[in-house]
């Protein structure tokens, strides 16, 4: 019996010493990792040698809990040690190696991490690697992008862009910012005009008269043809020898699923035209031309399509567009005041109009001046992606994903990561497996509860006694 007690005491002594050694080793490794940087540190901490170390730590922790009365007899101490075990085990389960083990043991195949590139109107299940080019595989469900937009802290900025004196050139333009306030007229240097902001809309859309006519411009190798945007309008081109027919006109095109496109009621926020291009061999190709670009990026058979917008006649607040508009009044000494509205366009950080055209012939001092509405790019408040998840043909979840508010579905978290910086036509979400997360979170709770209780309970006693003593 004595021998057994001595052995247990010896084992506890060894465990105590081992705990100090493991803690010391982890401190040193952490500092080394800090010098290595996140990429190399991750590799080091997931290397086979480290995996052995983590296993050893787990074994040590379990042994310590089982053999040390100081730990298993005190709930707080037990909680913090079990919490630590759960955190390490959960983290290992959620690691790449852990996922491989899960696949081998349970046949559960999940991506540890990855990226999804989701374009407007293109439901996708594809997961890419960090280069966004190499596909890693597919999810058993699909995500589609209903809308992507950027929110800023302040309103968009008004700038004056003045051309340099002399012949027309792209360089040497001077930008000045206008400090605007509704109702205040600002004189514009270089002209006799003043600009007054009548109204700023955080989110608005243009309104068109009932009979407004938009056009589609077909540019075939330099030859331009205009087609009215009316269902049934048709024209035959020579080179290439195709017939272009307008199938449908949309006021707010919205893609619901693959091949399911609707015209959203009550909104003019996404005007578009659907064309049918009939080839010489009889094949028919479909093209969708948005006011903001083309939906189909690829082979257009030698024709460049462009939507020529109708001139809007008004502006109305519309919370669904997430695009601001600013109503201005341009006043000149000769002539009536001219109302102008600048509408921000999806995918573009700037919109504007020409205040004064260049006319070197009549007055060399008069330079070309543009008025621009600029997104305050330095002051972003949020990047938001309106996402719908569909599985087995049914819509399951509809959420707006933004930084600090990921979507949780199907064993994964989806995070707002990046977006199409050129035209805002797609969003990039990063995905992360949730394996092992519950163990880690429970471990956090137990660890914190245990540390607080075991550390602060004796102090509370001290404080209480001191208070009474005085």
């Amino acid at each position, binding site marked *: 019996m004595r021998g057994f007690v001595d052995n247990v005491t010896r084992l506890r002594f060894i465990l105590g010493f081992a705990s100090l050694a493991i803690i010391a080793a982890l401190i040193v490794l952490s500092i080394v990792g800090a010098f290595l940087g996140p990429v190399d540190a991750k590799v080091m901490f997931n290397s086979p040698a480290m995996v052995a170390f983590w296993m050893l730590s787990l074994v040590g922790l379990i042994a310590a809990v089982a053999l040390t009365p100081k730990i298993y007899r005190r709930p707080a101490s037990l909680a913090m040690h079990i919490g630590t075990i759960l955190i390490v085990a959960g983290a290992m389960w959620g690691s790449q190696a852990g996922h491989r083990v899960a696949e081998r043991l349970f046949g559960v195949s999940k991506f540890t991490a990855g990226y999804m590139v989701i374009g407007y109107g293109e439901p996708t299940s594809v997961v890419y690697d960090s280069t966004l080019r190499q596909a890693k595989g597919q999810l058993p469900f699909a995500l589609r992008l209903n809308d992507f937009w950027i929110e800023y802290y302040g309103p968009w900025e008004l700038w004056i862009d003045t051309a340099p004196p002399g012949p027309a050139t792209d360089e040497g333009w001077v930008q000045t910012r206008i400090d605007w306030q509704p109702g205040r007229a600002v004189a514009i240097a270089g002209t006799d005009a003043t600009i007054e902001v009548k109204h700023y809309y955080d989110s608005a859309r243009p309104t068109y008269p009932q009979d407004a006519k938009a056009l589609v411009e077909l540019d075939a190798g330099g030859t331009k043809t205009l087609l009215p945007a009316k269902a049934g309008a048709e024209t035959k081109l020579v080179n290439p020898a195709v017939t272009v027919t307008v199938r449908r006109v949309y006021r707010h095109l919205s893609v619901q699923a693959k091949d399911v496109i609707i015209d959203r009621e009550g909104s003019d926020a996404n005007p578009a035209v659907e064309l049918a291009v009939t080839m010489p061999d009889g094949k028919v190709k479909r093209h969708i031309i948005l006011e903001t670009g083309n939906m189909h990026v690829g082979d257009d058979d030698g024709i460049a399509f462009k939507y020529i917008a109708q001139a809007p006649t008004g502006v109305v607040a519309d919370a669904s567009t997430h695009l601001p508009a600013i109503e201005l009044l341009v006043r000149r000494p000769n002539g009536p005041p001219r109302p102008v509205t600048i509408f921000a366009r999806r995918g573009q950080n700037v919109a504007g109009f020409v205040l004064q055209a260049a006319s070197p012939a009549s007055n060399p001092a008069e330079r070309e001046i543009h008025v621009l509405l600029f997104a305050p790019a330095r002051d972003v408040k949020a990047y938001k992606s309106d996402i719908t998840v569909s599985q087995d043909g049914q819509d399951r979840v509809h959420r707006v994903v933004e930084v*600090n508010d990921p979507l949780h579905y199907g064993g994964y978290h989806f995070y707002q990561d990046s977006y199409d910086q050129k035209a805002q036509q797609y969003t990039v979400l990063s995905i992360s497996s949730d394996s092992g997360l519950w163990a880690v979170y429970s471990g956090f709770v137990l660890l914190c509860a245990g540390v607080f209780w075991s550390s602060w309970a004796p102090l509370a006693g001290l404080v209480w006694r001191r208070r009474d003593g005085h």
Partner: protein
Amino acid sequence: MAIKYTIIGLLVYATMLIWLLGAAAYLARNARWGNVLFAGGTVILAGAWVFRWVEVGHAPLQNMFEIMLTLAMTMYPLWLFCSRYLGARGPAANVIIALVLLVPVGFVFPAEPQHLPPALRSWLFVPHVAVYMISYAILILACVQAGLQLFARRDASGRLDVSAEQSAHRIVLLGLPLLTLGLVLGSWWAKIVWTDFWAWDPKELWSLASFLVFVGYLHLRSLYGAKYPRVNSILILIGGVCVILTMIWVNLDRIFKGAHSYAS
């Protein structure tokens, strides 16, 4: 180095001056005046803190200027608690440390008000940073006690005065749960904002190292008690150095690239 000709700048400089006088009072063994000046300076600094909150529209915990200001502000209340109930001593050292913390606030760190970028717009932002700042202030107090212990004298019968060792231990017990909570909140927040609850970035690893040093200290003390007070004290001081490195070096030094580097 630049002088801040703003209201906050002036309040910070006023606090520094008052604390300087407070340190002089403590060193001249006038504890009463020392306490009045330490407390008075803290009240003025708290005014600057509130002013900053109103100015930027969110809790002032976003950049180094705000964080160090917050840290300096917590020193006196924590000193009051630790000296009254946990046996902490060395008020001069504490007010001087608080003063030193304010030097970069007053002269180095840029104080341009910034909106919170998307990554910081979470309810976890304030708890994670605030809990860490309070725990750092507490552990700095513990380091002062540890330092005092290293200079402890032996009495007539040769026994080492262990009161500093004891108070250091108690103060670490006060601070470690907050350090743990800060680490856990940070990890939880990382999962929400950065896709994974651990990114192995330098700030995380230094904060883990700091945490483990104090955990190691408590394990050591659990095994050997106060048998080796110098070892205990040195361990606490190593922890303090790790905390300072976590806070300062990683935020500023370009060689430590990582997810936390937006803080500059």
